[in-house]
Structure formats: C-alpha cells, structure tokens
C-alpha cells in the first residue's frame, strides 16, 4: 500500500501547531516564569541526554533512552500482569451473571482509585519498590481490559451463539471457536486503553519509589533544581505514550479486520 502524504494537512499544519506551543513556552519563560527554562536552554542542557541516549555515568545520571528503557520494561511487566488478571475476570463478568452480580460492584469500586493510593499499600505488601511499582501499574491498568472484555462478551451477535447452540458445541469449543474470537475486537480496545493507563501510572510509581526511569529521573532533577530536565522528561513521556498508543492502535486495527 502506497503511503500518500498530504502536505498541508499532515505536515504544515501540525508543524505550525507545534511552533505555536513553542512560542508560548518561550514567552512564558521570559515573562511570567523566569525559573522555567526557555526552549533553547532546555535543548542546550539536554542535548547530551538525547544525542547520546544510552550513556551511563551513574545510577541517576543516564541517557534518556536508557531511562526510557527502564520505564518501558517496568510498564511491560505491569501491563502483562494487568492483562493476565484482567482478561479472565472480564470473560467471567461477561459470561456468568452470578459472577457479575458478585464482583461488578467491587470492580466499579476499585476502578476510580488513584495509583497514588495503591502505591504505599504495595510497598507495605512487598517491602520493595520494584514489585510495588509493578503491582500498582497492574492494579490501575487492568480496569479497561476487564470492562471492555465483559462488554465484548455480552454484545456478541446472537446469530454466532445460535450456530454454537445448533451444533451443540462443548463449553470449551464454544469459548475457543465463538466467544473469544467474537469478543476479540473489544478485548483489544481494552488492551490499548490499559497500556495508556499503565504508561500514565509509571511516572507516579517511579516518583514515589525513586526507582531509575523517566519518572524517577524527573523527580530527582526537580530536587536537584535542574528544571530543564523536567521538561526533557515530560517530552519523553509524551513521545513514548504517543508511540505506544499508535502501536496498539495498529494491533487493534488488525484484530478488527477479520
């Protein structure tokens, strides 16, 4: 498939939008907030972190690529755990009215709890920062998977279920040949939203536990008064979040196109 780029809509306008934000940033840094580093100063103080993304001078002074890698590994662990727990719960909620009656209130109750609230509890349970961070990410990121999977199962076309009923398929075959494939598009929408949440939670988790990663780096540089590195971290978090969403969007589109 040929990729066709329309100059105005896909290049000029987005660049113009970014230029506007950059200009506003520069204006704010020269007028109301003198402590806020200007775009130029941010670039000068951050260039080594970007141009040599994998250097390592010490535990807390590393290239942004290396820091992002630590964060991504942590997010991956939490995300995989969220899917491993959330997907079966979602299927049970969708399939069994009794399970739904028992656990849906709990799900609705736990869903809005902030990662900041879970993290200290994770530290109490695991006594170590790394598993506590993964636990927090998993616990916060699993809800979209749970809810979308349950909705996906409940909205399966009755026609498909009737095929299974007429053929008197066994429970296992009903699940593997009809229920799982039919709800897969919803499930993957849940996965995409869960990944977005996991990435949101990582910053808070690393800030509070002081583990090395983009979020940990951000908090450390705030405490060391190197404000330009806060901006570097923020931009990195945004860029990676954007890429992750696009990536999951592609996976989701493939699943939908059966």
């Amino acid at each position, binding site marked *: 498939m040929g990729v066709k780029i329309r100059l105005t809509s896909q290049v000029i306008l987005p660049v113009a939008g970014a230029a506007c934000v950059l200009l506003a940033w520069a204006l704010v840094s020269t007028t109301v907030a003198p402590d806020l580093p200007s775009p130029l100063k941010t670039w000068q103080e951050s260039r080594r972190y970007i141009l040599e993304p994998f250097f390592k001078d010490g535990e807390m002074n590393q290239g942004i690529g290396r820091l992002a890698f630590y964060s991504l590994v942590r997010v991956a662990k939490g995300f995989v755990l969220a899917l491993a727990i959330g997907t079966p719960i979602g299927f049970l909620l969708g399939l069994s009215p009794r399970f739904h009656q028992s656990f849906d209130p709990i799900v609705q109750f736990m869903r809005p709890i902030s990662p900041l609230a879970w993290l200290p509890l994770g530290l109490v349970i695991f006594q170590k920062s790394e598993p506590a961070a993964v636990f927090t990410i998993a616990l916060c990121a699993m809800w979209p998977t749970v809810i979308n999977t349950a909705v996906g199962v409940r909205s399966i076309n009755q*026609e*498909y279920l*009737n*095929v299974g*009923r*007429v*053929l*008197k*398929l066994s429970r296992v*075959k009903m699940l593997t*040949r*009809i229920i799982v*494939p*039919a709800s*897969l598009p919803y499930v993957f929408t849940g996965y995409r939203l869960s990944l977005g949440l996991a990435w949101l939670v990582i910053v808070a988790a690393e800030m509070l536990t002081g583990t090395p990663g983009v979020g940990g780096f951000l908090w450390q540089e705030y405490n060391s008064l190197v404000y330009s590195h806060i901006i570097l971290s923020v931009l990195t978090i945004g860029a990676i979040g954007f890429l992750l969403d696009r990536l999951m969007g592609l996976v989701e589109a493939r699943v939908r196109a*059966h």
Partner: protein
Amino acid sequence: MAYLEVRDLRKAYVTPRGRTAVLGGVDLALDEGEFVAIVGYSGSGKTTLVSLIGGLLAPDAGEIRLDGAPVTEPGPERGIVLQQYSLLPWLSVRDNVALAVDAVNPGLPAAERRRLTDEFIALVNLTPAAWKRPRELSGGMRQRVAVARGLAMRPKLLLMDEPFSALDALTRATLQDELLKIWGERRSTVILITNDVDEAILLADRIYPMTPGPDAVLGPAIEVALSRPRQRRHMSLEPAYQKARQALVEFLRASRTGR
C-alpha cells in the same frame, strides 16, 4: 405418525408496548424425504416458526416432534440455513463447514472428517474458495457455505429461512437449481420458508401458504404435481405449475384482503 409433527403451535412476543400474538396455532406434518415450502408475506411469522422448530425459541403452547422425539432445544439434527448466512467471520469457508462436520461426527478419525468436509465444500462448488474468509465472498458464495454447513450436520430435517432472498435474481436462480440438484441426489427432509411463489413451486413437493400475522396460521396444503427431476425452463407452461401457482396466489390474496 408423521416424521415431523407440529401441533397447534402458538407464540407471542411481549414487548413494553403490549403483547403480539405471532403464531396462532400452526399445524404441520411432513414425511421423511419430503420437501415442503411455506410461503407468506414478510412479517407474517415465518422466521418465528423456523426458530421454534429449530429449538432456538420455546413455544407458548403446542408441540413439535421429530422422528418421535419432542423438540425442546436446538440440535444438529435440525440444520438451519438463514437468510443472513450467519457464518463465523473469523473462520475460513473450510473451518465453518468443518465446525459442523466435527460437531456431529466426534467418533470419526480426523482424516475421515477432513474428507467429509472437502466433500461438502465440493458439493456446493466452493473448493477453489475453501481457504477464504466469508467477507471475501459474494452473497451467493456465502449462502453456498451456509448450505454446505447445514447439510454437513447430516440433519434429519433441514430448515431454510428465506435462504436466497438477499441475493440478486440471477444468483438466486443458480442456487435454486443447485439446491434442486443436491436434493434430488440426497432426498433430505426440507422445510423451505420463502416469499417467492415460483421458488416454492420449483423446489417443493407441497406448499403451505401462511396467513399474514398476527395469529398467523397455515392454509390448506397445495400439492405440486410436477414430475421430478424438474427443469426451470418450460416449467411455467405445464398445467400443474399453473394450477399450483393459481391456488397459492389466490389464497394469499384472499387472506390479506380478508383482514
């Protein structure tokens, strides 16, 4: 007792706006190997009747017996072919048919089941498209898959609910001819639901007109005295065709103006 016996079947749907009596006491009897068509206006409750005989819906009153056994739930001995195909879009043509073959022949060795699957796909002339997904197929090809799946259940009774009405006229004629040929070879017991009078006469031994709902019932049976094998060409010139057509159209017209 007949092979399929339907006695005083009643069904109503209850909606927030009230109760609609769809079927008001349907009686029907089929012998083994008979091809019966039920013809009626759309919305008269034909699909409800198919769902009841298929066991997908429970009747409010009345009884259905197939080969002596009461019908209480769906099962492969009553294969269903629906207007909207209801193929599983994530499975290939082959896997859609194989699902049925595997379900009704659990004791057979895998190689034998594969051979059966290929046989049913070949029966509806889809061997070249066996690995395609339903969305890659035309409407006519999809309906062929649904017919193959229905036959692959080796049903005692094949229920077809307006199987060709979503197709264009040329494709419909082709599929009717194919069905005629397949039925001629296998002599399955078939109930065909349709709103196409000519389709019913071409295919069926006997036709029941259905009165428009609510409280739909079946009118008196109309025998189609055309000899088999039948040919679409010249059929309309035969007196038996004209007689059946006239009886059917007259009953349907009278049942509508009589309301």
